[in-house]
């Protein structure tokens, strides 16, 4: 076999096509429509936010500057794609990528590395959506030739950014393993990523009688503490919540501190919701579904965390935000509390209704919250309507719990 075995390159391309088709088929029609609708709305938001400033720029400085601005926007997206691909690929290589025991197969390293990088960087394809919105926003403002040229250039550049990101991800993963060793870089990384035997013992548990939801809550705590990704997710929510409290001490005008504290409180709530979705994803389907736990138990166990998080956030802000007038403080606490509960409940709903597809639930949560933020920027307070609609819509799907099956 040569360094670039054409047969293997062809086989990996065919595999990538089949995987893409299968993943698309796994999304039911309603979810596909929802994803497309939300992507369209976000595109609309980017379009609107780009077109007006671009028009002003072209009127003030001419079309050449406008073309440069569009190119800069696309370049920023390419950098984001590259960064996303690199970080995601490094993380997946460290955890052990999906698929068969790659090292047990007679594979040439180059196509294998390219395939794994392509799998990791598929996430970056989502950035094509805002790029399309930026290009659409430039139509009629900058010369059509420039728009077409930028569009034609973007597709291969995005592929290039994904490839470069994949290479950087491999280098990052290589830096985390002991130096030396035999074989190509991808083989060395995969050899270390393979499960390592590490004998350790855990403290004996207390056998106690408790309701099912409480048993789940206790189990959630243990699993979060011991699983790196879940622990990081929970800690991140906590860190941002603390940052939202710290905002009250910033050396800035009170309205600005008020705004930052509120914004960070919402981000903390979103991160808490993301952790709740990840918790749902950590439940093994066959284990949970064969135990006598009903919808109330599963939903309640996770909603307790959402409510506790919101309560902690509101209480700590009530203690810290002393400079606000009583009326302003009341409004702040009610709004941030309601938003935190709403976002948390949305996370719980998505985690339960899309179980065991935590990846899909996380995407839906991100898109719903992104849409709510975009709506609020376009029309003040309309984000609340979006959030409420998403909660009600996901709540209507909760009875599906009794009919769920592993996809």
């Amino acid at each position, binding site marked *: 076999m040569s360094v670039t075995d054409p047969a293997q390159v062809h086989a990996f391309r065919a595999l990538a096509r089949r995987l893409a088709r299968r993943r698309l088929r796994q999304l039911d029609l309603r979810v596909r429509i929802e994803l497309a609708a939300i992507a369209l709305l976000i595109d609309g938001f980017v379009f609107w936010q780009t077109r007006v400033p671009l028009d002003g720029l072209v009127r003030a400085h001419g079309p050449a500057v406008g073309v440069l601005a569009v190119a800069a926007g696309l370049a920023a997206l390419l950098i984001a794609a590259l960064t996303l691909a690199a970080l995601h690929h490094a993380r997946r290589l460290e955890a052990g990528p999906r698929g068969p025991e790659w090292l047990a197969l007679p594979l040439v390293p180059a196509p294998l590395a390219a395939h794994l990088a392509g799998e990791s960087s598929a996430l970056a394809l989502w950035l094509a959506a805002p790029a399309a919105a930026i290009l659409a926003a430039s139509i009629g403002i900058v010369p059509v030739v420039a728009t077409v040229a930028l569009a034609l250039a973007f597709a291969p550049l995005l592929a290039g950014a994904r490839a470069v990101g994949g290479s950087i991800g491999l280098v990052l993963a290589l830096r985390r393993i002991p130096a030396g060793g035999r074989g190509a870089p991808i083989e060395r990384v995969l050899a270390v990523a393979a499960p390592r035997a590490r004998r*350790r013992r855990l403290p*004996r548990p207390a056998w106690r009688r408790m309701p099912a939801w409480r048993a789940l809550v206790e189990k959630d705590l*243990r699993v979060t503490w011991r699983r790196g990704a879940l622990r990081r997710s929970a800690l991140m929510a906590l860190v941002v919540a603390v940052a939202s409290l710290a905002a009250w001490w910033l050396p800035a005008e009170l309205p600005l501190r008020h705004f930052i504290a509120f914004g960070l409180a919402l981000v903390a709530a979103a991160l808490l919701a993301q952790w709740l979705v990840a918790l749902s994803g950590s439940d093994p389907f*066959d*284990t949970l579904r064969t*135990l006598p736990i009903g919808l109330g138990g599963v939903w309640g166990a996770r909603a307790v965390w959402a409510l506790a998080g919101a309560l902690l956030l509101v209480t700590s802000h009530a203690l810290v935000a002393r400079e606000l007038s009583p009326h302003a403080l009341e409004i702040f606490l009610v709004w941030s509390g309601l938003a935190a509960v709403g976002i948390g409940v949305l996370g719980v709903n998505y985690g339960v209704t899309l179980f065991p597809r935590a990846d899909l639930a996380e995407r839906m949560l991100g898109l719903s919250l992104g849409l709510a933020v975009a709506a609020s920027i376009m029309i003040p307070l309309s984000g609340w309507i979006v959030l409420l609609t998403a909660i009600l819509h996901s709540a209507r799907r909760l009875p599906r719990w009794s009919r769920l*099956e592993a996809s």
Partner: protein
Amino acid sequence: MTLRVADLRRRYGAIVALDGVSLEIRRGEVLGLLGANGAGKSTLLRTVAGLQPPDEGTVTVDGVDLFADPVGARRRLGYAAEEPSFYEELSAEEYLAFVAAVRGLDPEAAKARAAALADALGLAGRTDEPVQQFSHGMRKKLSFIAAVLHRPPVLLCDEALEGFDAGGALAAKRELRALADEGTAVLFSSHVTETIERLCDRVLLLRRGRVARELDRSAWGAPAPGPSPLEREFLALEGTTST
């Protein structure tokens, strides 16, 4: 009847996995399920366990309709999976304590039973280790313990003893027999005809998602009591008694 399955149908696209399967298991009966790969054994067991809804048909567990009252039915079910999944970060004992709490078992009694089962199956001394450190056989044993911990009226075993060492398999078979003697209805799927012959009172042969034949013990005769010669050799090596 403790388990009643009526006209169960399930398709995967064009593939018919279950084509009108009906069966009944009485209290204290061990029903074997034999069939080639793809015959529908695992689909049947997963459907009866409530892991996937059928296209048509009903499942009644100890008088409770599985699809009308899934939580009530799962209280009465135990399921030892072919490929069990766990909370990998929990120790085996933490996992069993969680299962016992969710099932509302008496904590002390459940703890004692879990310890006794772990000892009998050869897991003693390893139950404080995270499940992610367990071998395939140890995972299957843990799944078996979790399935029988509450002495369920209906027990579903999907290739449950595959991966067990000889001592563990013997202990598990003894436990299954003891449960059956207490009144548990057992649906036991396996590729190993020898295990089915020794353990089961009746056998259904599945073929292409249908019950092709039904046999009772008279069809294959009474098995030799106690362990086989090879099992005796293994037990002697391990220093385990065969009683």
